């Protein structure tokens, strides 16, 4: 593979990314305009007189035609100005960034746990296919995936943070700077809730894929040339069987962004999810627009990352050039 081919590929993917973000921004913008209710009226209250509403609209730029509003907004984004929150009267960026950081910690933490548990349980199920071990693993995973996050979350709180065992705090988030123990103990329940929800997908994908590889001709070739079971597992099975898991993980990263809304609400964590709820409830359009854009961006980047990793690990994917 020539470096240039890869660079071209990257260039193309990045340009798709830009295109995607552009489309998302347009959709986000359009839907917030369609939302019922006049922002100025909402802020000033129903009793406000027409003049002050008009004045505020002018100040917020709401009197401009929609396309000018849109270009102002996008133009602002490029200069690092995502507008000012209508409700909080602070720059949107200052509100979003710390919460993004919190949410990312939750998400990445969950992803790591899901990876470890999902993959190892998936591999184990595949190796012990159709035995009792396999059935138990599948059963647990099935329960996890069929309960919605508000149920698992609430159950976990009741069980581990309340009357039964009071082991973990039921709510809030503590930054790492305040010590590793409080940090982790606050993380555990929300991470567990998300993990229960997602692990099943990763597990099932891993199990199916590993079983397929175990039955492949090349694994048979490896065994028939006298390579030990163990080495066949590491060298041949895992490497090929786990590749597609990368994609599933990236997809889950996207879904997780959606689940954060619920989970952060349950555990009272000030992250992006809660911020979305807050922005909708208060018709804080600039804030809402930007948060949604950030979530979409995280999703798009996760997918790009997964594709690049996949391409790096799978030699069959070439970035062009000579066959």
């Amino acid at each position, binding site marked *: 593979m020539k470096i240039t*081919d890869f660079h*071209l*590929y990257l260039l*193309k993917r990045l340009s798709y990314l830009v295109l995607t973000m552009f489309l998302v921004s347009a959709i986000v913008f359009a839907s917030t305009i369609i939302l019922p209710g006049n922002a100025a009226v909402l802020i000033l209250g129903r009793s406000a007189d027409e003049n002050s509403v008009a004045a505020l609209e002018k100040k917020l730029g709401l009197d401009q035609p929609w396309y000018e509003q849109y270009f102002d907004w996008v133009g602002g984004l490029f200069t690092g100005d995502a507008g000012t929150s209508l409700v909080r009267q602070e720059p949107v960026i200052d509100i979003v960034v710390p919460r993004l950081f919190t949410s990312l910690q939750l998400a990445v933490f969950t992803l790591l746990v899901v990876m470890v548990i999902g993959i190892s349980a998936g591999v184990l199920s595949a190796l012990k296919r159709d035995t009792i071990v396999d059935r138990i693993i599948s059963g647990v995973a099935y329960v996890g995936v069929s309960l919605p996050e508000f149920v698992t979350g609430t159950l976990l709180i009741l069980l581990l943070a309340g009357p039964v065992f009071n082991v973990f705090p039921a709510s809030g988030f503590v930054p790492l700077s305040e010590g590793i123990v409080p940090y982790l103990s606050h993380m555990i329940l929300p991470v567990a809730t998300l993990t229960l929800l997602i692990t099943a997908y990763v597990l099932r994908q891993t199990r199916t894929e590993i079983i397929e590889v175990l*039955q*492949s*001709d*090349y694994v*048979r*070739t*490896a*065994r*028939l*040339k*006298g*390579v*030990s079971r163990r*080495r066949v597992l590491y*060298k*041949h099975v895992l*490497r*090929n069987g786990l*590749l597609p898991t990368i994609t599933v993980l990236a997809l889950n990263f996207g879904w997780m962004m959606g689940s954060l809304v619920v989970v952060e609400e349950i555990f009272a964590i000030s992250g992006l999810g809660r911020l979305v709820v807050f922005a909708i409830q208060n018709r804080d359009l600039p804030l809402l627009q930007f948060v949604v854009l950030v979530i979409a961006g995280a999703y798009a980047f996760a997918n790009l990352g997964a594709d690049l990793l996949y391409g790096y*690990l*799978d*030699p*069959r994917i070439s*970035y*062009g*050039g000579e*066959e």
Partner: protein
Amino acid sequence: MQLEQTQTTSNETVLSIDSLHVEYSTPGSNVRAVRDVSLDVARGETHGIAGESGSGKSTLALAILQYLGDNGSITSGTVQFNGTDLQELSESELRSLRGNDIAHVAQDAKSSLNPSLSVGEQVAETIQAHQDVSRSEAHQQAIEMLREVDIPDPEYNADQYPHELSGGQQQRVLIAMALSCSPELLILDEPTTGLDVTTQSKIVELIQDLKDEYETTIVLITHNLEIIAQITDRVSIMYAGELMEQGDVYSIFDDPSNPYTQGLLAATPEIGSDKAPTAIPGQIPDLTDLDDGCTFADRCAFATEECRTGSIAMETVADDHETRCRRWEAAVEDPIQPKRGTYDRASAGGELLSATGLRKIFDEPSTVGTLFEDTSFERFFDLEPPVKAVNDVDITVRESETVGLVGESGSGKSTLGRTLLSLLEPTEGTVTFRGDDVGEFDSSEMREFYSECQIVFQNPHSSLNPRKTIGQIIERPLRMFTDADAEARTNRVVELLEQVDLGPEYVRRYPHELSGGEKQRVAIARAFAPNPSFIVLDEPVSALDVSVQANILDLLSDLRAEYGTTYLLISHDLSVISAICDRIMIMYLGEIVESGRRDDIFEPPYHPYTRALLSSIPNLDPHKESSPILLEGDVPSMRNTPNGCSFHTRCPQKIGSVCEESCPEVEPTGEGESSEHGIACHLDEDEMSTAIEGLHNDADG
């Protein structure tokens, strides 16, 4: 070649299989894949195992290695290797035996190599599994092994991944892997299936060279009887899990004493003879539900009532020649003979379809069209040159004749066929049908054209819609192209089925209930439904076993005799083409390099490529030696076709720079302009006619 066939065999038995039975358990039933197989292989012997697919050859190979997957097991019998009962070995003893003492080269090289490890590493892995060497030493040895199997640039190729190598090279890598620890016994499962003839002959050559060098004993599994005839010492013929006949290669081919063996031999086409391949009727029985008596009884011409009772034992015909048949004496007395003489022919009429200057180029850079298609980014950036799949082809097909189009895989045959039918739009050139330019047709003329010209595809499993009944499948073209009402259509469907020898009960069946041969019959019935005048048959028999293949060829020839239909028969197999074609065109890298009547092609003068192709087809007679011309390298990529004569990179008769610089035109041979035989080559006719010293690879050379 022949000399070695019996020389190196000693009396010492390396492998001894005794009444082996193997079963696979599947939900609800057991597949009795191997039954009562006994077989001894002496040191230095090359033992051939032949039989149609599903006869248990691969299962037998895996049973030798005690590796039958999750659901397979040896239910009785023994496998001994140098006197050791392999079933007694522990897992770790087996591990050190596999790859070291007994090596296995699996069927289907492509899927047998790990796609994400470099081939060098995969060879080195075998060495490291059995020898106490460092990683870098193992890698060095792996490179040497790759050199041994004639991988062109071992240092470089070792770091490549399987998908970067051609099919022939992948097969070589597997062989390198198998030989890397100098095993005593090498089991090769269909090592040449799916390869082109020119590659096939190189692999066969390699196997023979290596056998001598490594003094290996070989078990060679293949359904290709010609290869068996050419390189084995002893032969076992398998059918439906049983051994039908066993003996030394000469007795099997000279005095086949089992109706199944005789049938297989009669079904195998032979080039340059007037043999009309003769089918074995019926199909292999269901191995989960076997009746008493002979498994072959339903298909056997000699079968009597006594064949359907009890179990049939192996009987001795002669010294080292056994057969599993109660009536073998009758079979020897009056053996099954292939039909002789060519098929019935209608005589060719006027021009039906022709093309001039036809070109089909894929991947023409079209930025807008490919912008949103993720995988096509090479095209998006115009990184790859376009594929010239059909390059300046002139072709004329006359009414009621059968034209054969031959070439190796990837030479553009199917693309040409589809472009002629307007299923693909030509990039350049014109196609005329009955004298009218197809490109100028309006939509009703086009509809007419589509109903007159039909196509039958290679793979009957994928060309029939699995959710439609056979009746619906055949009815569809009737609906599309005729005005027949429902009743008339139903009658016609039954009539069409009858013509392809299928009963009316098939109307309601689904494709998955049919065998490969039956599906292909349905595809043919469908093609004949609108009464076409022209049918493109794209590899119609290559997915079928030889016993069924002859059947389909018979059917095609009957139908054309009855309806005067014109065929364009596309195949990579010259013997199939020679069996039923009037005229033949040889294609290489998108160009027609030679065309002429059947006999013109099989007799000198030859285009150098045709000569190589013809020489690569092994002979079915073990007394006659094949001496293939081994072409260098692989077929070049269609993205980078050589300048000048497209064959010059591999041509054994290349003259010099003229071949590299100027592209030869198709010139008529013999008495000039009127000749139907044309060759595109700079050589003069004498050079294309006379045998060439040192070109053929001699048996003792």
